[in-house]
């Protein structure tokens, strides 16, 4: 709109108004239509995004802060929170390392079968979480491929914590890699090559040249990976066995509470995960905002 104003500044006022009006009609929608479209979009987003979020927070705190605090510190809830944090502490670092390593191989080298490898990394996004759980039950469950052997050696994976770790590792495998691959491809390898030519070794090059370049994308990938790891439900529902205080993660504990009609407690635990979701999208917006500013400064 600023550009339209400046291009027609020199014209007489009457012509100015006329040109501005026709111009607007030509490449913009009339004001009433604009307002209508904005209103429809906002109503749609309120119904599907804002209200569900509000209902979680409202129901969690409806009966006061004390009830909320009791609900999240009660032993089974505390055990679920501890288990979820334990899972995240193990799975996120593993998939962080995998993401960086895979992105290094894919972005810095040309080799055959690369596009197949990228598709394979994307695969967990395409598979239903329930099927992910099933896959590991078939492989490691009591009636599965390795079940009898595992039972003989007294190793419990399904209906125990290792099974939960496996399905969450599967489900969150793509996040870091997917953030880093396009970023590192775009950055190319000239900087690393100069660093090596100047005498740095591979590790030094990675820590001093590559890592500073990818740190924001890496951070975002880790945040997404963390959010999904804490919230994973369908796959965990199949492998965990829902043993209270032992193999219930936070989402499973929410389901148990809800099915027992303990709605306030269910929403109290939910509010923690909803808070995590808000932090996640806020962090995403901040990182994107920072990127845009850097690109702006780079251009000017």
């Amino acid at each position, binding site marked *: 709109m600023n550009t339209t104003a400046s291009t027609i500044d020199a014209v007489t006022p009457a012509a100015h108004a006329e040109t501005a009006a026709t111009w607007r009609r030509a490449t*913009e929608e009339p004001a009433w239509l604009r307002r209508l*479209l904005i209103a429809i979009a906002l109503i749609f987003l309120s119904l599907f995004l804002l209200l569900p979020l509000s209902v979680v927070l409202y129901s969690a705190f409806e009966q006061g802060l004390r009830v909320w605090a009791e609900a999240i510190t009660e032993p089974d809830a505390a055990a679920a929170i501890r288990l979820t944090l334990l899972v995240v502490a193990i799975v996120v670092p593993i998939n962080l390392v995998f993401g960086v390593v895979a992105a290094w191989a894919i972005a*810095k*080298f040309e080799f055959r079968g690369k596009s197949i490898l990228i598709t394979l990394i994307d695969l967990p996004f395409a598979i239903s979480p329930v099927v992910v759980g099933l896959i590991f039950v078939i492989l490691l469950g009591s009636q599965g491929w390795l079940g009898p052997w595992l039972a003989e050696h007294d190793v419990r994976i399904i209906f125990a914590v290792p099974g939960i770790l496996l399905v969450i590792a599967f489900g969150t495998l793509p996040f870091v890699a997917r953030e880093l691959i396009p970023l590192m491809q775009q950055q190319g390898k000239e900087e690393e090559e100069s660093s*090596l030519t100047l005498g740095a070794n*591979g590790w030094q090059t990675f820590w001093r040249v590559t890592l500073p370049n990818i740190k924001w994308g890496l951070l975002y990938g880790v945040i997404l990976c963390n959010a999904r790891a804490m919230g994973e439900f369908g796959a965990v529902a199949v492998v965990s066995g829902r043993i209270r205080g032992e193999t219930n993660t936070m989402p499973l504990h929410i389901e148990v509470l809800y099915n027992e009609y303990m*709605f306030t407690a269910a929403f109290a635990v939910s509010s923690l995960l909803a808070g995590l979701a808000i932090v996640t*999208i806020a962090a995403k917006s901040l990182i994107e905002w920072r990127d845009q500013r850097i690109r702006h400064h780079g251009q000017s």
Partner: protein
Amino acid sequence: MAFALRKPGVLPGFGITLGFTVFYLGFILLIPIAGLLLYTAQMSWDDFWRAVSDRQVVASYKLSFGASLIAALINLVFGALVAWVLVRYEFFGKRVVDALVDLPFAMPTAVAGIALVTLYASTGWVGQYLDIYGIRIAYTQLGVIVALTYIGLPFVVRTVQPVLEDLDREVEEASAIMGASRLTTIRRVILPALIPALLTGFALAFARAVGEYGSVIFISGNLPFRTEITPLLIVAKAEQFDYPGAAAIGTVMLIAAFVLLLIINGLQWWASRRYR
């Protein structure tokens, strides 16, 4: 070197990084998936067919695929509208709204599930008003559509938005100067440019919805033949230790996922050629 896997270069670490990547993918991803497919392959054809064509299972396919299709269509229309409004118009709170679009990606599905059922139940904030008109969402097939719309909402918005941002405004001006009305310009100039992105977003939303479990099972009520989605049947069979039954249906879902992934890759390849 008789067989060169890669082009030569000075950067180190190719062997170890590729080796680790392939090993990890094989260990976590490929061997377990192969395990499911082999398990199903061991079943006799009759057992397999009986498991996947059971009346209750077929009813669940119809619901899962039908509701996913409707939800993806809703998201196609409203996702395009939201993307348009976010790119082209200015309004108060736009940045917050833009950020909020990602909420279904970040919100755990179980939390979304209990929030949606609470909201749309006949006593809920929204459901009580719909109840006056006799519209019931919770524990009906409409509820499944609502949950699947929620879960697929970001896809169309996020695939269309960047394309719309990069779209050359001069083309629209040219179209207008040559006498096209605004509607004609949108229909004949803008829409064709958006089609690959729209289809990609649609396919992503559909694929996500078909496999969705957590956000649906609370609002659907899980009535056999009526509101049971296919992933729920897999969980139910696995819980009853009916591994062959679960594996057969799981294999059907897995193959559907592969087919959808191929279609999405094809669409993305088409889109990248179109927009470059």
